[in-house]
């Protein structure tokens, strides 16, 4: 066989692999998204199930230090303006921290940790703060009197008080001046079987630092990941059993 033939074969082979890759890769990505979004849909009137516990795994090793996509996505999805002053609300924020002993730097998103034993729910005088059967900690904005005791009680500063009149309401996420609010895990999307906006935005950047799912489902990605790698809950010493865990802390 001539040298030209060998080169042609190698060329065709490589081109074939490349073309095949081009054809299959988007399919794989789509499959990945479809797989990730396979969440149960809750029918109207159907109560949330206590068999499910929604949670999130934040892989800080994958979180981009200059990336703010999760914050922007949350702000857009839930209709809160991105923060400029200390009185502005922040449902989710990016934090960069440094390990004191080693100097190792870590970036991570911070929001409500959806505790199993949430101090905000314990202290709320009117039971406006409540935990849904599937583990999501929420505020009933029609019941909140704006005392801010939950904000005093939260170990993660996850909650914000609405200091000013709210002009534009999102029909999915009503907000009101004088009440307290925080991450809802995009409960309105979740009930339609769609992942939280931040998780979707993070996946789109390719970082995949946020893995969302049912902590009670032994086949879920989050369950399998938490089983296979060392994870940390924030302020585990407080015994709150947060729905969020972190890799790389």
């Amino acid at each position: 066989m001539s040298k030209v033939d060998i080169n042609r074969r190698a060329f065709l082979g490589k081109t074939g692999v490349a073309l095949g890759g081009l054809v299959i890769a988007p399919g794989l990505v789509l499959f990945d998204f479809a797989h990730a979004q396979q969440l149960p849909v809750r029918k109207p009137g159907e109560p949330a199930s206590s068999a499910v516990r929604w949670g999130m795994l934040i892989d800080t090793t994958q979180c981009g230090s200059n990336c703010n996509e999760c914050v922007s996505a949350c702000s857009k999805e839930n209709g809160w303006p991105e923060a400029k002053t200390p009185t502005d609300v922040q449902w989710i924020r990016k934090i960069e921290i440094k390990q004191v002993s080693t100097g190792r730097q870590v970036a991570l998103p911070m929001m409500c940790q959806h505790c199993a034993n949430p101090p905000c729910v314990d202290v709320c005088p009117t039971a406006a703060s409540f935990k849904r059967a599937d583990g999501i900690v929420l505020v009933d904005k029609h019941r909140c009197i704006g005392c801010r005791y939950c904000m005093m009680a939260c170990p993660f500063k996850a909650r914000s008080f609405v200091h000013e009149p709210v002009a534009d309401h999102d029909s999915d996420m009503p907000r009101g001046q004088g009440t307290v609010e925080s991450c809802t895990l995009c409960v309105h999307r979740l009930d339609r079987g769609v992942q939280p906006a931040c998780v979707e935005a993070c996946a789109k950047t390719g970082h995949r630092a946020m893995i969302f799912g049912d902590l009670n489902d032994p086949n879920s990605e989050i369950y399998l990941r938490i089983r296979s790698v060392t994870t940390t809950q924030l302020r585990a010493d407080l015994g709150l059993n947060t729905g969020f865990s972190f890799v790389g802390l």
Partner: protein
Amino acid sequence: MQPAKTFAQIESRYFYLLVALGALAAGAGLFSAYYMEEHGHVVTGMNNQIVWGMPHVFAIFLIVAASGVLNVASVGSVFKKEVYKARAPLAGLLSIALLAGGLSVLMLDLGRPDRVIVAATKYNATSVFAWNVLLYSALFALVALYLWTLMEKRMNPWSKPVGLLVFAWRIILTTGTGLIFAFLVARQAYASAVLPPMFVVLSFAWGLAVFLIVQSVMFSWNELQLNPAIQKRMKNLLGLFVLSALYLVATYHLTNLYFAKQTAFEQFILFDGGVYPWLFWGGYVVAGGALPLLLIFTPGLGKSGHVLAASALTLLGAFALLYVFIVGGQAFPLSIFPGYEVLSSSFGDGQIASYAPSTPEILLGFGGLAIAFLITTIGVRALNFLPHDDPKTPHHD
């Protein structure tokens, strides 16, 4: 030539002037609350880091003092001291007045004061705030009942058991106030079991200081002289309470200093936290603690003017301590990531939070004081709350 005005006419004119001033201050407070509700809490100095500010300093002072002032009544009814029994009605009136002022401030500072009825109808049994709604409402009712047993002759035999109930209730109530903070598991400044007893003892000191000021004004208004023996007993009691409060505040800080995880917070609040150490040492320890003790116990001092000054300083110290405790306690960052330091955050993580109280929230606080002042002023004029000491009480020990 016009006839000279009688004492009653002059006195009446001063009374209406005082009521007008009180109403003006209360009105300014109410207008501030309206302004805050109209524009949102953005017009206050409070923010998402310092969520409780000046209104809470005033409200908690008033509520704690409302409980403590009843100590005067308890010493009379429960411990059968006649001198104090004569003062029980005034103590009861002051308690209702202070509680009404404090609760007004707390309620009007809510993000949604229009929903305050929700606090009574939707009840969360695990919330110490919700417990306090019951404790405060019941204290109003119990003190009103207590006043009835004291002021209506036929009811007099009931004053002891009702007095005992009031005594127990107010200790539980102030325990509840301390628990508001003691139950905050994640805040370095608060999660401490010493807080409820500390608040109980602080209430004794602050309540008695309020009582002594009001008593002094009432006696001079009526051109009466307080029996020096009674004066001495009451000032010694104030001294004891101020000293006990200092002891518990010291215990609270010393235990914190012993825990390695709390030392950074103590360093901040006691030494390098700017306005907070100044207010703690200068405002509470020196002006609100050491000076009153000197005025009370230094040989040659301890006269009525000194006791009045000691009482006023005790109250000044109360505001300084509460400001440090409530605002300073929140200003220190939460420890969310032990072992890490925060490099950047848009939400003030790892940073000292700043707070500058605004005019509306200060006016709201003073409005609460004004409500207490109005109830007291009108109460002592309308009904007979002036302590009537038995003339046979010896003037010396």
